[in-house]
């Protein structure tokens, strides 16, 4: 009987082995917070050290999305998408705050620059520390997804249902996925209205920045729409889907969230049913305005910080 039980366990282990391998490689990444120069220490407050909260308490995650095609060296990519997500399990409230990629900030690695460069200078630790010090937010964990990772994730869950707010038409969309040259262009047309998007079209919808006047801000709104659609689809998944998902995502996802916390978060995610309990914030003017150095965006911290402290206490 023991042998039969062991054989059954072995079958189960074999089934979940790809997921376990992926989880070990991707989850529980150690966050290395870079040390700024002595001058920077004098000029700015030290990055706050993330403190892990139990899942029963509120926690904040920094979502990072990057182009990781051949234009970039691995681990030195820009983060084209930075979204702070605060989850309050007790009230089932979720707040998403999109940080403009071109926001001109004090980087945790020293000096000033666009916030999308923080990751390229010091990895996820630098990105977390930069957001933490500039926005005054305690960040518990990060999740980083590469360009192909989002496509693969959405395809692995069978696509997502999205109400695209308007037709996204772009004659100069980067053709770095389908072309041999990472600098080629292609035309894309994602039409408006409710629809089922596969990974490629969802990526086109969230990545195009030429389709609306708000450029990166409009893109941030679209990214939040697709994130919510992925969350909705994730509710249909079962633990038995994990091997296929991990096989699809291999190498395109990294997170500091440990395996035990991932397991605890899955049922929590499914319990968030009320779309009205999800607050979406994009730092449009007057919170930010253009005209910063090198085409960057300047923050109006006197407006941003009270807003952030209200929703990310």
């Amino acid at each position: 009987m023991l042998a039969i039980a062991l054989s059954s366990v072995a079958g189960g282990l074999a089934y979940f082995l790809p997921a376990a391998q992926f989880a070990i490689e991707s989850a529980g990444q150690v966050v290395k917070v870079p040390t700024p120069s002595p001058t920077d220490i004098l000029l700015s407050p030290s990055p706050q050290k993330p403190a892990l909260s139990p899942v029963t308490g509120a926690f904040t995650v920094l979502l990072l999305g990057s182009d990781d095609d051949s234009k970039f060296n691995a681990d030195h990519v820009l983060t084209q998408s930075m979204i702070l997500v605060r989850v309050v399990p007790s009230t089932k409230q979720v707040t998403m705050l999109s940080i403009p990629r071109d926001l001109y900030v004090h980087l945790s690695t020293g000096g000033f620059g666009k916030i999308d460069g923080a990751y390229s200078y010091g990895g996820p630790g630098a990105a977390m520390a930069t957001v933490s010090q500039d926005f005054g937010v305690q960040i518990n964990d990060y999740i980083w997804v590469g360009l192909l990772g989002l496509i693969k994730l959405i395809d692995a869950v069978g696509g997502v249902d999205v109400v695209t707010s308007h037709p996204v038409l772009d004659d100069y969309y980067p053709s770095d996925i389908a072309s041999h040259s990472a600098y080629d262009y292609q035309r894309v047309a994602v039409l408006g209205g409710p629809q089922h998007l596969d990974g490629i079209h969802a990526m086109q919808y969230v990545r195009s920045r030429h389709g609306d006047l708000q450029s990166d801000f409009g893109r941030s709104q679209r990214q939040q729409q697709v994130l919510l659609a992925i969350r909705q689809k994730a509710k249909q998944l079962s633990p038995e889907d994990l091997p296929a998902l991990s096989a699809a995502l291999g190498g395109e996802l990294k997170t500091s969230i440990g395996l035990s916390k991932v397991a605890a978060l899955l049922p929590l995610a499914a319990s968030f049913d009320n779309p009205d309990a999800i607050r979406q914030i994009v730092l449009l003017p007057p919170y930010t305005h253009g005209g910063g150095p090198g085409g960057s965006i300047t923050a109006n911290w006197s407006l941003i910080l009270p807003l952030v402290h209200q929703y990310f206490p």
Partner: protein
Amino acid sequence: MISRSMISRFLLGIVLVVVMLAAGPTTYLVLASKTSKVAAPPQKPTASTPRPQAYTLPGTIYIVQQGALYSLSVGRFHQLTPEAGWTMPALVPDGTHLLAIKTNGRYSDVYVLNRFGSVTKRVTNNAAPPRNRDTGANHWAFYPRLSPDGKTLWFAYDQPKYGYNVIMSVWAMPLSGTIKQGKLWTSANDYSGGDVQPIPVKTGMIYTKYGYGPDTKLVGQLWFTNRARAAGKPLTSAGEDCRSPAVSPSGTQIAMICTYEKQVSYLVIASWNGSTLGARKAIISNQLVAQPIWAPDGSGIAYLAPGVPAGPFQLWFLPKAAYAPIPTASRSPGASPAESPSPVVPVKPIQVTTNNGFDATSPLAWG
């Protein structure tokens, strides 16, 4: 000497060994069978006819899956074209032919097909000139419709455009002519997606205009105009965020999709007097509904919506009894959106297909 008990024990041992060997693979297979199937590809409509108890719809519906046109008639699907970028079928007024769009990734064109899917005419030619490598030299044409007399083609076309500002505008041209004879009808808002989904009616043309609402969010609004380049007037408010107009066979009602600037969608109907919309009535509010179309005999409204939450879009039908009688009270389009939709009446939509995954960006045609 071998006793019977020894034989029994030997056989039991064999059985246990077999069970042990089978337990591992069986566990593996049982776990694999419990996957959610969310990523299972949709079936082709012709792979299985609608469920035996499915509602048999009157006439013939034209619908799109994976770049192929299909017809559904008397409960049976027929594939009309290969999976080659076909979308947006529209019946010509006499019902003998279809208009449709064929996309190839860089541009799209209007074609005329017979009801069996054979191309009889290519109406536009939107590919960039030979040797022109500028991606912007290509053009999109979408949402073709013919005027009631069958002579004028209405469609959304990405001219004029300037650099990154690629927007659709509504154009009209003789079906027998070329785009050089075409006339620009609308002035689209810059960087908005533009003006799409023209529906020619007796008094003018209804279309969807995308633009920035008071809260700076991009929204859709139904507009009406009766003169080329005239400003026209909005039929719905920005807060209602509506699109996909469909005029009833009697010409007295309009069905549309309104999303109230959220990731939800309502199937809304309103009376139509030729220039203004009456009170709204939300008749589907619990599904992500898209592309409504009225039955040619007035017996109901077909639409696309997921069969399961967050799943691919299926064909549904809402019998007229679910939404009649129509509202008649008039209401100002500028009034505060109805931001909350009208009270929802109990409805019983019928799911016609279960696992097909139709293209929810393509209007349906029904004749």
